[in-house]
């Protein structure tokens, strides 16, 4: 039962307990001897019943009864009367046991087992359940059993839905009933049962119900969760869609054999490739699997070697991922001469891409772009790539688009793929959400009102178009108010605030350009001036909207309040990253870095790595003991000779090992000491600069 304080036992209770224990012990030993001798007489079975009615947790006794039932059923020659009496006896024993403790797994399981025999009437079961659920309406055993009985009875989902309605009417805090409702409504909508065929009508009905609950008692959380679920049902696209890609649709990409030689083309679109291959990045709105050569077609001007190897960028162990990366090999011939090639990528024409929710990618989509190849003119010089990068402000200069280059910057506006299917049927969603927004504007003096409104406005903005967030100012204000109103959860609001702020900053060409700087180190001899996206000093605690940042190669996130960089793995082109002066607490919170294979320069200075003795993110991170990591990756003995440091720094090893960093700053962290520095030098053989000091 919920919310009942436990009382300390009184002396007389203790005496009663020990008497009970003594009685149990005797019963138990008698029962066990029956069990061992396979005695299934009436008396013996009755004895086990007595035992179970006192202690329903005695699983052996339930199993004994199962054996006894089977034995006795066999003896009875399936005479219907005898069968009935045997099974009814079992049901009675279970009922008595449940009365003793109706959270007994054994008892519930036994009941299911008896009913599955198919000889006893199920009619009584719902009545029994009603009785039990009256006492504890949120008992999950009872709910599980109810679903089992409903299936056995072939009760319609509508009937069960009405039952949840009755329970909610009785007490709106019955979260179990709300939960079952969400399951039933989903089923009914999926099956398109009459009155549930129109998704918008169903959702409007459900919104009305939950609105009554939330407005009646805004402190009750059951309604909040249901409302959140409904909102998700309203906006979520069932089938997966390609959100954005790199290269973006309609963009002109310059692939330069030289490192960052600025030859008049836009710095936004110039990329270097060493390996002779072009990265293709696909960003989906939900995690998908099945991206491969048969589901994604890449057609190019050259005929050779069209096969692209697609790899998921995983942050967990499942096969599905938001981000898929393909390596497109350019034939040697094409790389050696100037040329422009138009590439087209199409997907969704055949089945195979499936979301984690089991939906197929059903809307064929395509994007195309042009690749200009600039073969290397010189022999590689010791230029930008090997020079020390200094993140100091004076090295960054506001980017002023050259008038000549203005149309080359254009691809920024097309960063995300416009999808016609998305827009076509969103009017009912807009209507529903507008209605909810106007309702929740009435409930602005409590936290759930503000939070729900913020969520609704965010969802509303997401529906319209990718670029204009009409309500972002209001949403930011709501989250700021919430941080003050509800201090215990301020970090959560802060994170939400960050996401919105982040999206606001990078949405829209004007805004984004104002955060774009050219890096020019005056002391350096290099003439390349790469573009750096500087999102420093925004007090961000969380990152998002990565689908719009696939093009970024140099990113400055210093002077924020980041505790995690989750999602950053989508930025596959990232080569320079500044995370200095954040609140990163451990290497495990940097797991995304493992996937950034292009990363060369990393600044982690002045964080809190090693400052917390207990690292909670550790449990979210893959560990070396985890099977998915694989032996090859963890076979580090050849690199690290000092076994002691490997054990103490395994997180750092795990994150950094696969990276080919040339420059790393780690100073200002609790973990940074001489031992660690020595460890780093061993793990990162390509490292040239560590904490500003050139290594040999």
């Amino acid at each position, binding site marked *: 039962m919920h919310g009942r304080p436990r009382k300390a036992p009184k002396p007389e209770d203790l005496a009663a307990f020990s008497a009970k224990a003594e009685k149990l012990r005797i019963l138990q030993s008698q029962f066990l001897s029956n069990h061992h001798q396979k005695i299934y007489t009436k008396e013996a079975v009755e004895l086990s019943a007595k035992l179970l009615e006192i202690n329903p947790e005695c699983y052996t006794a339930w199993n004994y009864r199962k054996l006894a039932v089977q034995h006795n059923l066999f003896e009875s020659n399936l005479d219907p009367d005898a069968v009935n009496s045997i099974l009814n006896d079992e049901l009675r024993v279970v009922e008595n046991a449940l009365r003793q403790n109706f959270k007994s797994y054994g008892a519930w399981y036994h009941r299911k087992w008896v009913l599955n025999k198919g000889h006893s009437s199920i009619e009584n079961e719902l009545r029994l359940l009603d009785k039990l659920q009256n006492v504890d309406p949120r008992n999950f055993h009872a709910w599980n059993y109810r679903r089992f009985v409903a299936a056995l009875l072939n009760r319609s989902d509508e009937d069960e839905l009405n039952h949840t309605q009755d329970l*909610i009417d009785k007490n*709106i805090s019955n979260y179990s009933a709300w939960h079952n409702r969400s399951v039933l409504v989903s089923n009914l909508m999926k099956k398109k049962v009459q009155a549930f065929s129109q998704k918008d009508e169903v959702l409007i009905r459900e919104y009305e119900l939950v*609105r*009554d609950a939330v*407005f*009646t*008692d805004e*402190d009750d959380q059951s309604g909040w969760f249901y409302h959140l679920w409904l909102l998700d049902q309203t906006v979520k696209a069932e089938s997966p869609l390609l959100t954005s890609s790199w290269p973006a649709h309609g963009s002109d990409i310059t692939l330069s054999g030289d490192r960052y030689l600025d030859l008049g083309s836009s710095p936004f679109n110039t990329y270097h490739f060493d390996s002779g291959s072009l990265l293709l990045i696909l960003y989906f709105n939900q995690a998908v699997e099945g991206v491969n050569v048969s589901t994604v077609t890449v057609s190019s001007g050259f005929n050779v070697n069209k096969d692209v190897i697609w790899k998921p960028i995983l942050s967990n162990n499942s096969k599905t991922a938001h981000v898929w990366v393909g390596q497109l090999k350019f034939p040697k011939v094409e790389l050696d001469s100037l040329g422009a090639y138009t590439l087209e990528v199409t997907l969704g024409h055949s089945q195979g891409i499936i979301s984690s929710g089991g939906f197929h990618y059903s809307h064929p989509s395509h994007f195309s772009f042009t690749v200009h190849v600039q073969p290397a003119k010189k022999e590689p010089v010791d230029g930008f790539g090997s020079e020390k990068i200094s993140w100091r402000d004076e090295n960054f200069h506001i980017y002023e688009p050259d008038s000549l280059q203005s149309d080359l910057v254009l691809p920024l506006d097309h960063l995300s793929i416009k999808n016609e299917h998305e827009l076509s049927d969103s009017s009912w969603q807009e209507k529903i959400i507008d209605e909810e927004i106007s309702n929740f504007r009435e*409930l602005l003096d409590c936290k759930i009102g503000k939070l729900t409104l913020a969520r609704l406005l965010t969802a509303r903005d997401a529906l319209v178009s990718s670029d204009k967030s009409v309500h972002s100012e209001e949403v930011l204000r709501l989250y700021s108010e919430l941080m003050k109103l509800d201090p215990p959860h301020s970090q959560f609001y802060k994170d939400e605030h960050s996401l919105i702020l982040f999206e606001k900053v990078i949405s829209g060409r004007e805004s984004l350009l104002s955060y774009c700087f050219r890096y020019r180190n005056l002391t350096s001899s290099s003439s390349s001036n790469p573009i750096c996206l500087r999102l420093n000093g925004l007090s961000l605690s969380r990152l998002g909207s990565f689908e719009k940042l696939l093009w970024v190669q140099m990113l400055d996130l210093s002077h924020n309040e980041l505790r995690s960089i989750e999602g950053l793995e989508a930025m596959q082109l990232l080569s320079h990253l500044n995370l200095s002066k954040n609140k990163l607490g451990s290497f495990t919170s940097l797991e995304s870095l493992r996937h950034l294979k292009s990363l060369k320069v990393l600044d982690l200075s002045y964080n809190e790595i090693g400052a917390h003795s207990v690292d909670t993110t550790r449990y979210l991170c893959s560990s070396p003991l985890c099977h998915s990591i694989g032996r090859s990756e963890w076979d580090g003995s050849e690199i690290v000779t000092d076994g002691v440091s490997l054990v103490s720094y395994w997180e750092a090893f795990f994150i950094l090992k696969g990276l080919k960093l040339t420059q790393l700053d780690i100073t200002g962290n609790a973990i940074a000491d001489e031992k660690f520095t020595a460890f780093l030098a061993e793990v990162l053989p390509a490292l040239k600069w560590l904490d500003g000091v050139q290594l040999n």
Partner: protein
Amino acid sequence: MSEPPSYPQIEPTTFDLIAAGTGLAECIVAAAASASGKTVLHLDTNPFYGSHYSSLSVPELTSFLNSNSTPSSPPSSTSTTTDSLDYSIVNLTTQPVYSDVEISCFYPELLEENLRKFNLDLCGPRVLFCADKLIDLMLKSGASHYVEFKSIDASFVGDGNGKLWNVPDSRAAIFKDKSLTLKEKNQLMRFFKLVQGHLVATVAAGSSGDDGNGNDEKEGKTKISDEDLERPFIEYLSNMQLPPKIRSIILYAIAMADYDQDDRGVCQNLLKTKDGIDRLSLYQSSVGRFTNASGALIYPVYGQGELPQAFSRRSAVKGCIYVLRMPVTALLMEKDSGRYKGVRLASGQDIFSQKLVLDPSLTLASPSASPSDLLHESFNFLSTRDVRGKVARGICITRNSLKPDMSNLLVVYPPRSLYPEQITSIRALQISGNLAVCPLGMFVLYLSALCDDAIQGKRLLNAAMNVLLTFPDSVNSESSSTVQSENTEEKPTVIWSGLYIQEMSTVLHILNFSLTISIPRVHTHVDIGMASILFQGQFDSINFAPMPDGNLNYNDISDAAVKLFQEMYPNEEYFPETTPPENSEDDIGLSLET
């Protein structure tokens, strides 16, 4: 009937307490006294228990109302014999309690064979809140063993168009309500939570003393300020920005205020915030007190008359002697001191006791027999009647429910909801055959409203009845059965109706109750202080029980009974805990049928 059958002789002839009249308060006091080991004789003129609190069949009710609406002729034969040596005889007489009795039977053929199958409450409409003091008292005294209760299905607020709106009296009810807007739901529930917070904080402050404050603040449970508690409730509600609709629901359908709280001119009882909160708290703690009761209100099976009977049975178990059909004709007073000694019964027998509790309809007869000037004055004084304080009551028998899917329900018409001059709430309670107050398939609708006079009272009742019910004459005048069939939501047709005005008189005014113990029938505007000084010496052994009041429950009556008992026996415990309680785990010793 003039020649009464042979009265039984009562043995013994001396008791600690004599109670004349088996009204609820007398029965409670008798039970309490018996429980404390007093010897008690309990008498009643009538052949049934309950006096003005009883439930009667149709003919019994009619004759009781009629006989109590005319002044009884003073019992001439037996009591005029003032030849007693030791005592002066003060004759008692019955005052008319009811007036303007109006009984109409529209379909005698429907009632004929069932006349005796009714248990009509004299003091209806009346219900009990699950958290009522009377429920606690019944559980404590053991009287609960003799009564069964059922839930009232729902309460409604009625409007002039005959529509009934659910009273959103709990969280579940607010959630389900279809007439409130989201904003209103939120406002109402917040107010309920505020009240609950106040009550929790009050309890916490009471138990933990000074340091309680800090904790309360933390949990967000704040007390309503003392200043606010003393303000009129209506003002407080308006200050909380509650819209008029919500205010009206809280005031009249939950706090059960009688008078129009908006109009200070006509409002004779302006509810203070403190009292309003108490009433809300009673309502809220009633919801869910008993798991098998669906709402806040319950009603005894077989009618309200069961309650005095239950206490009588309890007293009988403890040795109290009951004699029905036994009028008390006179008081015996000591000649020298004028002190009460005993009573003379209709049988002529004199019975003596320390204390006496009298039915509220009894009063001292003409002053001719008075032995002294002092007493003489007092009689005049005592026979003065409070002209204000009447309650109009109505009983209607129908064959259909006001709501097709419900059998037992309460309807409140807040002031001015039916017509502009309606200054008091009208309450209507429908009880069905499943509560054994009438044959199955029939319904009894009780109505009441406070009023100043019969004309006003009848107007109040008729207004509600016209909205809720159909009277056969009006059907006949339209003389079309087609009208009936067209209208699917046909209003129930009245088979029988009885309207009457009941005097509430004095004792009900709790304000001056301690004074009116010794001086009943004093109205509020008389200088009570003076009167009490004059007469206390003579009358401290004689007490009058209260008349049924205009409230929906018995809280005030129950309070009055406690007071009565404590005045008489200041050193005795009120229903001492005797046997170990049978149900120690929960307080669900109350049998509720579902």
